[in-house]
């Protein structure tokens, strides 16, 4: 039986908190696969899941549903394929990062491209993946002052996460390189709603590896 810590969030929101990655992913897929009439949408946070209801009156139905979820079964998605992200390591912060952790630029690239990552959640901008799995040596504070304009496809690290900028935006992460993968293609959402997911290259839960396709040319 599900026993979750919950907090009310606005009239129609209930935030389920302190979830492990695995439980969060399974709870989300349970909610999405059951086409629950009282549910507007579910939104993953880092270790939380927001249930937005159609109306405030649906709260008892949601609470009943949550308490009936049984997530004790074994879960394994190791057969899920690994997506490769080609990267040209030419980012302006490679040297700064190398100096901060007292190693060579080659080692930074080696560290970043040898790890396996997982899309923990999306946000900031459409299709921007917060990636778990960044080697601990690369956990560095964000830049003191954010840049105003970062190109889509820019591969970056910030705190304990790796990420890929999905649209042109400001940002405070350290920039390591760029990929020509387009993470967000809004023009693919012009058709019917079922096809609109094609606008996103990645999904929450995807496994990822960065592959170096070129050295830095500074």
């Amino acid at each position, binding site marked *: 039986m599900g026993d979750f810590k919950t*907090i*009310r*969030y*606005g*009239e*129609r*929101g209930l*935030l389920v908190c302190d979830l492990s990655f695995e439980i969060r992913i399974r709870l*989300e897929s349970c909610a999405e696969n059951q086409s629950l009439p009282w549910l*507007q*949408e*579910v*939104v*993953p*946070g*880092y*270790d*939380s899941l*927001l249930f*937005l209801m159609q109306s405030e009156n649906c709260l008892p139905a949601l609470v009943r549903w949550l308490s009936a979820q049984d997530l004790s079964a074994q879960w394994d998605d190791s057969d899920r394929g690994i997506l490769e992200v080609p990267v040209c390591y030419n980012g302006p912060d490679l040297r700064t990062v190398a100096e901060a952790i007292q190693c060579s630029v080659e080692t930074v690239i080696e560290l970043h491209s040898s790890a396996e990552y997982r899309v923990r*959640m*999306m*946000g*900031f*901008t*459409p*299709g*921007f993946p*917060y990636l778990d799995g960044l080697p601990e040596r690369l956990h560095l504070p964000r830049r003191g002052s954010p840049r105003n304009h970062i190109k*889509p496809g820019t591969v970056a690290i910030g705190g304990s996460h790796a990420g890929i900028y*999905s*649209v*042109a*935006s400001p940002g405070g992460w350290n920039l390591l390189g760029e990929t020509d993968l387009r993470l*967000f293609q*809004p*023009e693919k*959402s*012009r058709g019917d*709603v079922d096809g*609109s*997911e094609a*606008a*996103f290259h990645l999904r*929450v839960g995807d496994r990822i590896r960065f592959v170096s396709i070129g050295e830095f040319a500074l």
Partner: protein
Amino acid sequence: MMPILEVISVGSGMTLQDSGRSGWRRFGVAPGGAMDQHGMVQANRLLGNLQHAPVLELMRQGAQLKVLADTWLALSGGGFCAELPAWSARFFEAGSVLHFSELSEGLWAYLAVPGGFVAPKYFESVSVDTRSGIGSGLKQGERLYAKGPIIAGQYPRVRQRQVHPDLQKVYPDEQQIRLLPGPQYDSFAADSRRLLVEGLWQVSPRSDRTGYRLDGGVLEPAPSIHSEPVISGSIQVTTDGLAIVTMRYGPTVGGYPKIAVIREADLDQFAQCGPGTRIKFIWEHY
């Protein structure tokens, strides 16, 4: 579908809007849509449109539009147009020009045309979200198309249609906005929770469609949190103690603690508060 308006001047900004996008937050797509949904619905109802048909959203002042066909037009929200009072609809002849002036009390005005405007839809919405690279704003000289049908004699012997007075909103320079506790309410000091409702707040000029900054006091910051989903109307408190209200175009996740969230029923009214409006918050509970 026919051309109905031409943009002579965009003024401080105009975009086509509807009720926005639902169900895409988990990919990081903000709901977007008209900043004041009530205003949008009332403009459409004046012309018998579907209530979420695309409307033109005009920010504050300076816009000029030329009418290209004999048609009825409707205006609502916080705008001031010399030729068309807010919360009403009337007939215009081709060649007329609409002027929006700075006398407006609210921030956003909504202009509806018969059947709604025609525009490309992304995730089933015409809403333009420039921060996310979805759609683009309107430019001078651009022509706007109505879905129609455009029937010049649609309301025979009627000079003007009006929104029922109970549904017309006014935008006084002092407003009361109701709050519910945000997810991190308990981690804020009692003094901060009190300051929020005892202080007099104003929307900072450094605000946009993603968020309204609040001037009027510094709150004691609460411990930072793991990034979690953020809904429109949330009052986030930065590490500097600055209060920012996330609006419909704000990021879908964030790591600032949220002390409060504006009641959904008050969010349209709050969205119309410009710099200079004095805001009094009131705590309510679940």
